[in-house]
């Protein structure tokens, strides 16, 4: 007696080969995203594969619309709540697009902060020079896009002070960041100038440990975690939309809270 026969239509083998190829690709996540979104959709509406791209395009459009709404809602004078030090989350969770054992070790002595784009003084900064600037500390809630939140204490240079110091064009739309862990992101100028946006050099009063972004991270309690870049190496001011590591994959760009 023969077992059940698997019928392969003409395109079946090619589709299967393609699927296997895509699973093996490093962009496995993109593949999973696509197939599983499709699963959810067919469940709901019975939409065909052809509609998938137009639905994704529509969702991306609405996400851009939500960026504009968030910029409108954003009140530059409203402060994120601050907490007593007794409420600090210990240990503060590590989060990145890689695991904790892959954290980059950056040499603080060799490190230079590079500046480019729409600003007057593009000379690079050493860590020592940044420590010599006025410092400010905050105990605020870090909210992750995944939903969890944790309270931490960061200290560093108010970003608005720094931007004025280097003669940044404050009418520009975006400030972008390139990081030592190959991460990159960008923010709106209004948030860059918010009084709680700081170039954090310390965590809990100590120099930033590598897992929290040594030598410098941008700390913004008015934005979700993925908008707070770590290991910053270059800052640029621009009117051209710079996107970001997660944002380019579909996470909302404004990402404000």
């Amino acid at each position: 007696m023969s077992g059940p026969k698997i019928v392969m239509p003409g395109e079946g083998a090619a589709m299967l080969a393609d699927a296997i190829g895509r699973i093996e690709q490093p962009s496995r996540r993109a593949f999973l995203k696509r197939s599983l979104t499709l699963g959810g959709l067919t469940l709901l509406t019975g939409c065909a594969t052809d509609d998938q791209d137009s639905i994704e395009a529509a969702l991306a459009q609405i996400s851009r619309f939500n960026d504009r709404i968030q910029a409108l809602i954003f009140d530059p004078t409203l402060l994120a709540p601050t907490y007593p030090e007794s409420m600090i989350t210990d240990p503060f969770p590590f989060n990145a697009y890689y695991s904790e054992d892959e954290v980059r070790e950056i040499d603080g002595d060799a490190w230079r902060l590079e500046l480019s784009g729409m600003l007057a003084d593009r000379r690079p900064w050493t860590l020592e020079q940044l420590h010599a600037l006025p410092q400010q500390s905050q105990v605020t809630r870090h909210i992750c896009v995944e939903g969890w939140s944790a309270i931490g204490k960061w200290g560093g240079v108010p970003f608005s002070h720094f931007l004025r110091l280097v003669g940044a064009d404050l009418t520009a739309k975006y400030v972008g960041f390139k990081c030592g862990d190959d991460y990159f992101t960008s923010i709106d100028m209004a948030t860059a100038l918010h009084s709680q946006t700081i170039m954090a050099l310390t965590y809990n009063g100590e120099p930033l440990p590598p897992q929290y972004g040594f030598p410098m991270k941008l700390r913004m309690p008015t934005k979700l975690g993925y908008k707070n870049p770590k290991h910053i190496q270059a800052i640029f001011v621009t009117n051209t939309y710079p996107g970001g590591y997660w944002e380019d994959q579909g996470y909302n760009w404004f990402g404000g809270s």
Partner: protein
Amino acid sequence: MPADERLIHPVWLRITHWLNAIAVILLVTSGWRIYNATQFMGFGIPRSMTLGGWLAGALQWHFAAMWLLVANGLLYLLINVFSGRLRRQFFPISPREVLHDIGAALKGQLSHEDLRHYNSVQRLAYVFIIVDSILLVLSGLVLWKSVQFPHLRELLGGYEGARRIHFFAMAAMCAFFILHVVMVALVPRTLIAMLRGR
């Protein structure tokens, strides 16, 4: 008797009802995928029941469908309030009659003779789901923009408080949904009425 006399649900009500159903299904299933990112209540929702594929996709669905829920919900509430339907259809709700109607329902004796008239259990359930939906929108607003709505945030117990309220209000909505669908299955005429209006 003029045809309109027998109308159970006006057309605006049927449209807002079904748009709301679409918005709720999109929001709940994408919300489950977002919840799965942390599973802070200690369990996960099966992937096949969620919408969006991965977190970013689910968030895109969630923050798109929220506009449908809010716009459609506001339209529904405004027409209800200004037409006087809200007062007429849902009130008064007397606790004694609710208990009586629950008893009658359990004995299978609750009358659905006139679908234009809501019994006490229906009134309570529908007012409950309206309030629950408002709570979902407000707690969602705090999760989305906790810094921008400080009073609402403090009222709902901060970001983490709002997060739990959002979860339990969702669970209550799911419970309503199940009860609602079971009741429709028991009295199928109500489904026809919500589609055809009579």
